[in-house]
């Protein structure tokens, strides 16, 4: 059994940033950024490279000091106190492992730093290695691990003390789809789900849609927009891109789609039997399209809704802010 969480989520925001400014020389990394994440929620930061995502996470982790403004974790000011470090698990950019240690040695070292006794450490390491498909018995040193394996080890490290707050900078980068799914299920599913508050930065819009309760689109150190992905799509996207694969694509399939309602940008790719269109309201349009195609004898292999409109909202917001100083 692990020791109980040092601080259980209260009613106030677990993560809070108030009007934070940070510059590196003449480059403004954060420009009055504020955000709040309530207990048990997953908050996604999405934005292009250099938008300020990693700087935000590093300030919250206590690795950078803001020029102005403050960061709080469960109401405690981030001043690198032991209390804030105990409730935090931070995965920042690169895995950063001690290459000459084995997996067991590395995780045991951090488990001891996080005050787990030998028995607790052994059990926790075993469980996490099982979850992340790591061979805890391996004598191979970490320097020989692949990038994906290293990322898994870093993930195991930040979960060792079962922290109530997780800061994750591109957490699934380099992981294979199966492990990505497992990690997602572990972090976001199960009985402990509401015990954890997570701030996640990602380039992957699909991942943001899947895991985040709320999303902020960040650019040039400022939050351009935030809300659930449904809200963002409603506010900024005119439709979703739908991609269908059929057993055999025919020319007249485009007409059938057109007749189904508010669709635009229909594209056929006969070589791949691929049909794509943009729908203003997929929930309304897709059943009609599918019914019409099926009635005409088309055999549909798969239907995908790309980015669920978030990619469109994202592009519009980023492109719209390009002209601003």
């Amino acid at each position, binding site marked *: 059994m692990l020791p109980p969480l040092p601080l259980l989520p209260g009613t106030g925001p677990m993560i809070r940033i108030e009007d934070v400014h*940070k510059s*590196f020389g003449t480059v403004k990394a954060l420009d009055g950024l504020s955000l709040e994440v309530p207990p048990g929620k997953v908050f996604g930061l999405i934005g292009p490279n250099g938008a300020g995502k990693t700087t935000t996470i*590093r300030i919250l*982790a*206590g*690795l*950078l*000091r803001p020029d102005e403004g403050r960061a709080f974790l469960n109401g405690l000011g981030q001043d*690198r106190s*032991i209390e804030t*470090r*105990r409730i*935090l698990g*931070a995965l*920042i*950019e*690169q*895995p*950063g*492992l*001690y*290459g*000459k*240690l084995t997996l067991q*040695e590395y995780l045991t*070292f*951090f488990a*001891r*730093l*996080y*005050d787990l006794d030998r028995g607790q450490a052994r059990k926790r390491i075993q469980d996490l290695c099982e979850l992340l498909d790591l061979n805890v018995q391996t004598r191979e*040193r970490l320097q020989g691990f692949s990038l994906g394996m290293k990322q898994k080890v*870093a993930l195991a*490290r930040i979960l060792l003390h079962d922290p109530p707050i997780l800061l994750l900078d591109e957490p699934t980068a380099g992981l294979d789809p199966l492990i990505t799914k497992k990690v997602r299920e572990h972090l976001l599913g199960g009985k402990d789900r509401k015990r954890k508050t997570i701030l996640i930065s990602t380039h992957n819009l699909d991942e943001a849609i899947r895991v985040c309760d709320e999303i902020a689109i960040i650019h040039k150190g400022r939050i351009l927009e935030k809300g659930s992905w449904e809200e963002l799509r409603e506010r900024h996207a005119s439709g979703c891109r739908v991609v269908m694969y059929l057993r055999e694509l025919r020319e007249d399939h485009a007409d059938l789609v057109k007749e189904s309602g508010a669709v635009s940008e229909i594209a056929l790719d006969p070589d791949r039997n691929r049909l794509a269109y943009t729908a203003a309201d997929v929930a309304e349009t897709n059943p009609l399209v599918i019914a019409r195609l099926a009635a005409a004898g088309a055999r549909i292999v798969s239907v995908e809704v790309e980015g669920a409109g978030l990619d469109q909202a994202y592009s519009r917001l980023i492109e719209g802010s390009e002209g601003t100083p």
Partner: protein
Amino acid sequence: MKKAWFIAMKEWREILRDFYVMGILVFLPLTMVGTLVLLIHFYMTFFLQNLDKVQLMLSSMPSAYLKGLSGYSDIQKVAILPIKIVGLPFFLLIPLLMSGIITSDSFAGERERNTLEPLLTAPVTDRQLLLGKILTPFVPALVVTWASFALLTKGVSKLINPHFLSPVFPDTIWIVSVALVVPLFLAGAVLAEILISARASSVKAASALNMLLSFPVLGVMLMQSTGFVLFSARTLPWMLLSLAALDAALFTAGLRVLRDKGLRG
């Protein structure tokens, strides 16, 4: 203190698995002590075979060297001189070089390999982190220095002590110096090296800056060789007190660097 040990033990494990670092840690002191013993061997052999040169040698020496040696015969004076002139400062150089090899990698190396951030976000106090980083080079450098001293004692006492009625090497000054001055000096050197490593942009820069720390030791060696004897019953207590004060000041500075500016933006 427990977490400082965890950090040090983790780093020792890494050092033990680094063939090149281990090679230097073993080879360098062995070579230095071996060279010193060989030099004393050739020196003693030369004067024992050329007794007519002993008087000439003693008359050309600065008078400070011969202070306190009036009760000895000429050949005994010749025998005792090399360990009095070069021996002790040499034992400050060994731990300085040993710790430098390990410490230049301390914070600068962690920063280069992106391993510092997990450590800085773990519940480890600045004091525990600094102590862990001090213990890492301090313990092996001290063990190597004391082992080198044991080797030197074995080699040199065989060459010198037979010329005396009772053993003259190692004397009290040597024993106190190696037992107390060396650890205090080493702690100061390690702290200075850690401060450099915490602020340096890379391991290469830290290694280059660490070389500057050998200048004070070379200065001590130079002073000793010109007849200004630093290690004596009169100077040792002052030396110990000064080193302890310097260590305390450097430790405080190290904590401030960790807390205020050195490692964070």
